[in-house]
């Protein structure tokens, strides 16, 4: 069982590297969809106490994180993007190197937190930290607005891992509320994206510069 968790989490780490290296939006979205699926099945494999409710909830999470959200963004891209490049501020090779450094650093600092639950799943905390930091990296290092939304989703995935891995306290209804908020947030962002594209013929955030001091 323990190995299964670590294998799955390793896949999540792999998805981070893929997303850092992808230059085109569709492949970036695919990497994120893969990550969404992988992250959602972690609670099933960790298996705190599997009730029917928790299995159903995990499946709902999987559908939303792994299918609905990526599909929504994919459709938005298909509708709007003339430029399908992610327009990096930091280049792909440098990004990949940064991603590797991130994973190493996360693995290095995780044992220092001294969490009682972390003992069973060696990769859980490093993966969560990596996803959080990698999401922020995408937010800062890509000029394309869609890539920024994907960075936000990656951060959310990281927080979800922290939540499922370490505390089993939250009720499913509350978890579902959080998931719904994220979904609605991504939908609103996608709608704004389409409008940005209509107004500027592009989704490069460098164009959004009129409002400043």
């Amino acid at each position: 069982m323990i190995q299964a968790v670590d294998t799955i989490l390793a896949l999540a780490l792999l998805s981070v590297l893929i997303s850092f290296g992808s230059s085109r939006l569709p492949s970036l979205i695919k990497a994120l969809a893969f990550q969404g699926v992988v992250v959602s099945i972690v609670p099933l494999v960790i298996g705190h106490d599997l009730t029917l409710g928790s299995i159903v909830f995990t499946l709902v999470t999987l559908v939303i994180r792994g299918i609905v959200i990526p599909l929504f963004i994919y459709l938005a891209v298909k509708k709007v993007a003339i430029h399908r490049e992610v327009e990096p501020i930091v280049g792909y090779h440098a990004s990949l190197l940064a991603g590797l450094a991130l994973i190493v650093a996360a693995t290095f600092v995780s044992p220092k937190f001294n969490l009682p639950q972390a003992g069973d799943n060696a990769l859980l905390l490093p993966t969560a930290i990596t996803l959080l930091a990698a999401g922020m990296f995408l937010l800062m290092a890509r000029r394309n607005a869609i890539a920024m939304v994907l960075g936000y989703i990656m951060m959310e995935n990281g927080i979800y891992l922290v939540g499922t891995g370490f505390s089993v306290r939250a009720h499913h209804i509350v978890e579902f509320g959080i998931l719904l908020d994220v979904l609605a947030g991504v939908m609103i962002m996608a709608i704004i994206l389409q409008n940005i594209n209509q107004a500027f013929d592009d989704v490069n955030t460098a164009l959004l510069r009129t409002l400043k001091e």
Partner: protein
Amino acid sequence: MVEIVFLIPLLTGVMAFFLPQIFSRSLLVLTGVIHLILSLYLWIRRPQALFEIYFSVTPEGLLSLLVISLLFFLISIYTSAYLDKTEIRSERVFTGSMLLFLSTMTMVTLSDHIMVMWIAIEATTLASAPLIYTHRSAATLEATWKYVLICSVGIALALLGSVLITLSMDIGGVDVPVSFSALTGEAGRLDPLWLKTGFVFILVGYGTKMGLAPMHTWLPDAHSEAPSPASALLSGVLLNCAYLGIFKTNKIMHAAGLGHFSGTILIALGLVSILVAATFILKQTEYKRLLAYSSIENMGIIAVGTGIGGLGAYGAMLCLIHHSLIKSSLFLSSGNILLGYGSRLITETGELAGRMPKTFVAFFGGFAGISGFPPFGIFIGELFIIIAAFRNGHYIAVGIFILSLCVVFAGFAKHVMQISFSGVHATIRMDEKPGMVWPQYVLLLTSLVLCIWIPDSLYQTIIQAVNSIGGRF
């Protein structure tokens, strides 16, 4: 059945999206009336919630709820008159979003569960995004994008903070519901390290939403690009909702004996906000952005007061209430000015006193109130914060505080004088209908009355809210 207070606006909000446009304004005002009545009922009776783990009626929540309710009612009257004067492409979306926004903000004030609080605060972002995008120009698009992205990312950090607090429960072996009230009771057994980390993340997350510098960058854009009734709501009550999340977490910190830690961070962030606001107010060119920076300043003042605790926290609560009343009236008046002069630039306005006398009275009165002139409550609030800071020995902080307030006042006064009295060639494009000036007068009058006479139940509620935040009175 406490939950009905936010379920009614939710229902009417959804209805507004589907009903024909002619109903939308009356629906807005009607919901405002019902909401005000229900809030007053909650204030008097303080009933139990149906879902006690998730919702409860707390003193600090009630204070915010009453302010939200009163403001929304007055703003809904203003909006009905305002919509006659402006072109809005989809009135149904506008009123529907206003009502949903009201519903989510009410939910914030009533939520007791840490995660439900997060859900509600994130929902306020989502419900208010269409309001900012109402005018559908490139600039509003940019403002909406910044607002949604910066606030969502910020609030995601608050979610991480909330998760870390549940982690501190796990490690401390505390088995109670994850609600603010239960955690405050058991705070001593929570793991201090993770509680502190959780607080920092929550402060940064909700602080983004509250407009604390350096996470404030979305605020001037969103407040200046949104239509004025929406700006009034954003500035008057949305910032309070985010503050409520910080306030309640701060209470847990105090109960856990970590009040000094949280207080120091709050004071530092508050001072940075006041300083940033002071710098940008001086060289501001647009009056709506001026008001937005003034909101950042006031949120800074409130954070400093909360950080000091005791009398300072009481002052912060006063500032919170009066800032809502006065700032929303100022934003409504700025809506009149925008309609009258047709420009957001300060240099293209002038002679407000002669051209639009009724708006001038409201605008100038609001300016006097927000700058901390004696007849208004902000003065008393700031005075209490300064006294508390001296008593607790925060000499450097209080020095920066007073100096920045002076700078803000000087900058604000310069711009308001220009708007009110300097000569300008402009034709005024609106007449001042009663519905577009009376709401401001009522707001300012309420602030004035509350300064001279605080009803005993209000006083007791404020004391109940702040008495667990340490320090002497």
